[in-house]
């Protein structure tokens, strides 16, 4: 008899490659997006994130007796724009529906949502899956979108006491209704088949593409860590060659791009182990645990879950005119993937460089920096280099450092104009981040400027040569690379305020050596 030291809820898995040799994974993703409207879906309360609990509430979003909803027109427009960007058909007429179930964070004990009449349906989006670490090539996968519908968010429950942070075992729970009634769009894919072993990567790429798209539409903050974009991942396996879909599980709480990939990967290996053992998958929700990298059982979920949907009688149907839909189509931004391809070509970046730029969230700022006069190479160097490191260290977005594209363009101008060298430029940037002013201002205040006068530089060169006759001799004898040590000393003499290239020229000229 063997004694397992695993935690009790750790289930058997089989190695990923082995699982994929026998089963075809099928995924379905449900992404909830909180819209960035000023007010909630059905009332005039502010919809901002992070306010004192229960300060952004009113009779409507608290579900007080007698309160009635009124649809937020901006949210409907956002929903239509999302639907159009996902190549969906926009309903000519659709209704809200009540999804009835009891839960303390849901004030009315029904969620006003859409059921069989979504605002947008039957769309698709092409997802570019990058090359992976195993050396498999990039490819494009078309994700079919079943629907995008409007609904309201619930309040946010916090379970206090107990060890899991979940409702079971908690001593008590508190609810913040600020989130109740925030407009949500739920985007549901059709079953995603045929991605094989790349399925988890496809899922991650899909969510990432969706995030870029929603950001470009400016309809949501799409901050997964703040919950303004949330993903539920349905996974099932079917034996290779089979035609009938297997039983699925729905993994919740998948709140980063990396988790999307990991959670699906884990579920594939877990399902495979169960199926290998000849057992059946239990249809249920699963909870993803970021720290341990596993899922645990949630509540049973069957297709017979009965929410007693019926058309919301307190609201009138939404019937966007075709003129309005076309007007909104005219407001759609360029598709982010196409735009990236266009910019990469214009800027002359390699695939790897472009990926760094995208990962740093720096496409926009680089575009603005180039528009302000900097070279694409310099713009990339600053935004994905020094500034990205600083942002990373401070845990903020690169755009939140207080450095503008105009600042970076100005800084680049100072370098190419010969006023600053690279290390001086970095010091100037530090001053800009510290709020000391624009680059030129900081350079002036800190007295940072390359010495342009060859007289002072020549004096320094001669002083250094006199102090190092042996090194000077080596250089004279043809060992040009030895000049490096001399340049360093000259720069030190000049307190860094010299152009190193000019110093090298003068050293070689003084020693009578050809460059």
């Amino acid at each position: 008899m063997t004694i397992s030291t695993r935690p009790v809820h750790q289930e058997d898995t089989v190695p990923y490659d082995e699982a994929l040799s026998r089963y075809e994974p099928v995924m379905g993703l449900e992404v909830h997006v909180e819209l960035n409207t000023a007010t909630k879906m059905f009332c005039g309360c502010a919809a901002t994130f992070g306010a004192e609990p229960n300060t952004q509430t009113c009779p409507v979003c608290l579900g007080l007796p007698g309160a009635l909803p009124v649809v937020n027109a901006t949210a409907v427009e956002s929903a239509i724009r999302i639907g159009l960007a996902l190549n969906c058909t926009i309903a000519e007429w659709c209704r809200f529906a009540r999804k009835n179930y009891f839960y303390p964070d849901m004030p009315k004990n029904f969620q006003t949502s859409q059921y069989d009449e979504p605002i947008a349906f039957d769309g698709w989006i092409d997802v570019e899956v990058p090359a992976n670490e195993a050396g498999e090539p990039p490819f494009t996968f078309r994700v079919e979108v079943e629907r995008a519908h409007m609904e309201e968010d619930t309040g946010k429950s916090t379970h206090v006491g107990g060890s899991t942070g979940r409702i079971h075992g908690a001593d008590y729970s508190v609810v913040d209704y600020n989130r109740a009634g925030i407009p949500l769009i739920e985007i549901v894919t059709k079953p995603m088949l045929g991605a094989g072993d790349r399925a988890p990567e496809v899922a991650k790429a899909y969510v990432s593409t969706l995030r870029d798209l929603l950001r470009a539409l400016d309809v949501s903050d799409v901050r997964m860590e703040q919950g303004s974009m949330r993903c539920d991942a349905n996974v099932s396996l079917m034996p290779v060659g089979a035609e009938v879909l297997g039983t699925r599980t729905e993994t919740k709480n998948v709140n980063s791009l990396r988790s999307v990939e990991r959670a699906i990967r884990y579920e594939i290996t877990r399902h495979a182990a169960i199926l290998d053992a000849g057992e059946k998958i239990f249809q249920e929700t699963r909870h993803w645990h970021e720290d341990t990298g596993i899922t645990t059982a949630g509540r049973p979920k069957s297709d017979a879950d009965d929410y007693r949907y019926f058309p919301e009688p307190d609201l009138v149907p939404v019937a966007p005119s075709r003129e309005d839909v076309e007007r909104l189509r005219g407001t759609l931004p360029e598709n982010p993937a196409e735009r990236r391809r266009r910019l990469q070509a214009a800027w002359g970046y390699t695939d790897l460089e472009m990926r760094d730029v995208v990962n740093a969230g720096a496409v926009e700022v680089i575009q603005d920096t180039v528009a302000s006069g900097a070279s694409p190479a310099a713009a990339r160097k600053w935004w994905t280099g020094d500034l990205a490191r600083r942002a990373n260290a401070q845990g903020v977005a690169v755009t939140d450092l207080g450095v503008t594209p105009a600042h970076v363009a100005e800084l680049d101008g100072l370098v190419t104009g010969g006023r600053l060298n690279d290390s001086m430029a970095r010091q100037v940037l530090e001053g800009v981040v510290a709020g000391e002013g624009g680059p030129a201002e900081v350079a002036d205040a800190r007295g940072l400027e390359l010495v342009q006068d060859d007289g002072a530089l020549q004096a320094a060169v001669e002083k250094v040569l006199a102090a190092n006759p042996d090194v000077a001799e080596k250089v004279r004898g043809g060992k040009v690379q030895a000049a490096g040590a001399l340049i360093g000393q000259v720069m030190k003499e000049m307190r860094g305020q010299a152009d190193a290239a000019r110093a090298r020229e003068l050293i070689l000229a003084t020693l009578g050596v050809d460059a």
Partner: protein
Amino acid sequence: MTDATTGSGTSPRDLTRLTAVRMADGLAAGEFTSVELTQAHLDRIERLNPALNAFLLVDADGALAAARAVDEARTAGEELPRLAGVPVAVKDIACTQGLTTTAGSRMLEHFVPPYDATIVTRLRDARMPILGKTNMDEFAMGSSTEHSAFGPTRNPWDLERIPGGSGGGSSAAVAAFLAPLAIGSDTGGSIRQPAAVTGTVGTKPTYGGVSRYGVIALASSLDQIGPCARTVVDAALLHEVLAGHDPLDSTSIDAPVPPVVAAATGTRDLTGLRVGVVKEISGKGFQPGVLTRFQEALDHLRALGAEIVEVSCPHFVYAMAAYYLILPSEASSNLARYDAMRYGLRVAPDGSPSAEQVMATSRDAGFGDEVKRRIILGTYALSSGYYDAYYGQAQKVRTLIADDFRAAFEQADVLVSPTAPTTAFRIGDKMEDPMAMYLNDIATIPANLAGIPGMSIPSGLADEDGLPAGIQLLAPAMEDQRLYAVGAALEARLAQEQGGPVIDRLPEVPETAPEPGRHTAAGTTQEGTA
């Protein structure tokens, strides 16, 4: 009739006997003050409400403060709305900021809303002192006010009888001169049927004509708020105060308010008017005395110049069944919010119960049997596998009934029927038989299903019991003014022919209710019904 000068003692006669129009004119002319008028009503409430139980809450301070403010404004020469200073009673289904609002339920016994319903705001804007909140069947489910958690309201015509429901409190208050005007809500007849059995006037406006914001929902697609009054023109004045578009109610109609006051004060000549008698709701199962008064009313309409035609609405036979699927379905969802989590009654079982257990225990303790019955019915009807057969089918019937009305209104300008099949029955008589109770609304329900306006005015007293009967008038959507034009003409003719308004024949209301006897005992035993 009483001529007592109770209370302030300053009024030369009982001001409560006046019509709302006369009250408004008297206030405008300086014959009396709003404080005097309001105090007269408060005095009468104090004297008679213990027997009637029409009011669940009396806000004497609030009403008098509002009255005083009107009097001061009038003295200062301010321009005031027509009904400024005329007091009003509000059914306890409308939220009143700072005033307990119970909907007749134990669940909300101590619920004090932090906001006013739109119609309450409109009453305040009209400068009408609010006397208090009137009794009703719990969450407006009932036709007798016996389903109130706070005891039945008694009919001022006979304290052993019901005042109709669900708005029995409002109609009893108006009939007993405790208030000249009151607010009701009508989901299947809750304004019209109480009006009929108390000898008063009540209107259910076109669906969407009056805001529902802040009015506790029973069935969202059927509920409509309207006026209760003693005369047609009084009802029209209150109707115009309440009506009009409200951006807070998505189902509220954004169109001009039908000119109901003009219609109620216009010509009494009905020449050329086509009046349709709806065959399906004007005979079978109706009390003979009710039918006799109805037939006479038709003669009077003819005498006024109208042409009487018979129309058929073949799908009305399914109206009751459809109504008792749609209403419980919507109600089961609307009443889900009463879960003890944020407000309302909370009853926790012993130990350390889960939220779910607290919800269940509280709902068990807070809701009465009729409410539970309808929640269960609605939950069942909406369940997957049953939805199409029940809720879905009922919605189809609804469309057919609307089609019936459309066809009928091609043959007639207004439709008529007796409002309720019987006069007021005895308290307790129908508590054991929900189906018999539901049948009270057989003639009123179709209007709610179709969203059209309806009105009940007194047709006289039934010969066999001397109790009031009502005639119902129906008009196409947003043609509410037709009800008032026909109602006012018929009202005047009936008064002329019957020797005065029906309400003038109201006997003196006793100050004490009869001891609970054979009939009333059942009224307090709300358990165990099928």
